[in-house]
């Protein structure tokens, strides 16, 4: 039982890790908390649903255009809503991302309706037998796709000039400006990447949850807790925090009443903030003006 729970936990954790990573990327790169990150997850899942229905591509193949579309969509949000606000205070930008979140939910409701819809995947009905245990095929898809996405992201971050610029901006924003890095350009790329990272989460978890307008928002709350657990602002922390939270939540759900399961992320959020606000990998925050 524990092994099955661990695998399920890793699958859920993969999704948290991706969304938390997307959240932290934008937080570090563009210095804002993107409350619409969850909707970037949701819309990507609906994109893949549309592609599956309209073009009838196989599920795994349909992922690719859906991920790309989600990246473009994130860039459009950045250009239309966020960029004009650059240079203003933190609150207006935070509220603007919240506005984006509400707007996207409205648009999804208009286009696809408010009732839950299944995102068909051939892997939901397949199981891998491991001795006495069964592992869901879709959970394996989630774990593998997430790892692939993390690997691609890692290579991009470490091996390309743009990735280097992202690292520099994340490590010291002013320092990066002074090295001649165009923050506008890199901000756009950061949004594209976090849109694509979030998309993998939405497209792979979609077949397990039913798709509905609020699916991403729920994930955002958990991913936020995961990022805080890992130390908000730490990229490694966000990823490991995501996996850890997924495993803790699923294992707790396996041994305790399921009603408790959904409150686990919030319990962890509160515990971390009380006991160790900087999280596992975060730095003690010093207010710098």
């Amino acid at each position: 039982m524990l092994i099955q729970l661990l695998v399920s936990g890793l699958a859920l954790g993969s999704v948290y890790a991706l969304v938390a990573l997307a959240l932290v990327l934008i937080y570090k790169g563009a210095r804002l908390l993107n409350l619409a990150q969850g909707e970037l997850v949701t819309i990507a899942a609906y994109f893949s649903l549309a592609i599956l229905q309209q073009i009838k591509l196989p599920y795994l193949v349909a992922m690719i255009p859906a991920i790309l579309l989600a990246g473009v969509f994130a860039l459009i949000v950045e250009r239309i809503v966020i960029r004009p606000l650059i240079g203003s205070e933190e609150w207006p930008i935070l509220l603007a991302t919240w506005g984006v979140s509400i707007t996207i939910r409205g648009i999804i409701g208009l286009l696809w309706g408010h009732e839950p819809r299944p995102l068909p995947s051939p892997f939901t009905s397949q199981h891998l037998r491991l001795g006495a245990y069964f592992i869901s095929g879709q959970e394996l898809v989630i774990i593998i796709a997430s790892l692939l996405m993390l690997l691609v992201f890692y290579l991009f971050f470490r091996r390309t000039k743009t990735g280097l610029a992202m690292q520099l901006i994340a490590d010291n924003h002013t320092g990066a400006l002074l090295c001649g890095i165009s923050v506008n350009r890199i901000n756009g790329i950061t949004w594209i990447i976090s849109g694509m990272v979030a998309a993998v989460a939405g497209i792979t978890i979609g077949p397990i949850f039913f798709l509905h307008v609020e699916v991403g928002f729920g994930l955002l709350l958990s991913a936020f807790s995961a990022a805080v657990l890992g130390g908000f602002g730490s990229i490694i922390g966000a990823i490991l925090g995501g996996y850890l939270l997924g495993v803790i939540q699923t294992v707790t759900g396996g041994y305790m009443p399921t009603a408790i399961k959904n409150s686990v992320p919030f319990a962890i959020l509160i515990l971390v903030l009380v006991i160790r606000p900087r999280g596992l990998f975060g730095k003690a925050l010093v207010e710098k003006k």
Partner: protein
Amino acid sequence: MERKMIMLKVSDLQVYYGYIQALFGINLEVPKGNIIVLLGANGAGKSTTLRAISGLLKPRKGTIEFQGQSIGGLPPHKIVELGIAMAPEGRELFPNLTVRDNLEAGQYTRTYKIEKKEDWERVIQWFPILGERMTQLAGTLSGGEQQMLAISRAFLTHPILLLLDEPSLGLSPLLVKSIFQSISKMNRETGLTILLAEQNVRMALSTAHYGYVLELGRRTLEGENKVLLENNEVLSSYLGFS
């Protein structure tokens, strides 16, 4: 000074932080190849002036002309591209990256391999300690080493005008002397024009050719280094002599 080409000309520069005015119309000229110093106490507007020139702050009024081109309000990366680099107050290094990564960041926009290598060798020659610290994280360096790294990183963007904001801040007298010697060397060996803000009046004036004194966001005095050094007002205001 009249016959020299003016590289940077700041006229009636006014900068605000929100509603609070920090600069009340600064005028200054930086001739090509010179070291010019901005003197003044905390809050006099030295950093604000440099930050406006480098594009980190937008001027509300006034003009900044660099080689005849108006640059006021341009984004920082454009200004770096035009040839102005800054080692800012607080240094703004990449603390979690190595010394090598920090130096490479300075060359982020550079493409000419030969020039990059020449600049790199110069920096190591001026600040040999950085050569020994290549794999160390920038955040773990001593204050003096961090300052050297900040200056080096700025130099590696291949500027024609280098802005240095209080390079002596928080350093021991011995280190201050060595940093200023290196600044002199950079100017002598490459003809680099340098505009530096300082509170260490004696050290700054012994290095610079010409100085401006700022007080509460206004320029109050200017003159050749020797003239300012002998000016009792400067000494009494900034060194506490009378």
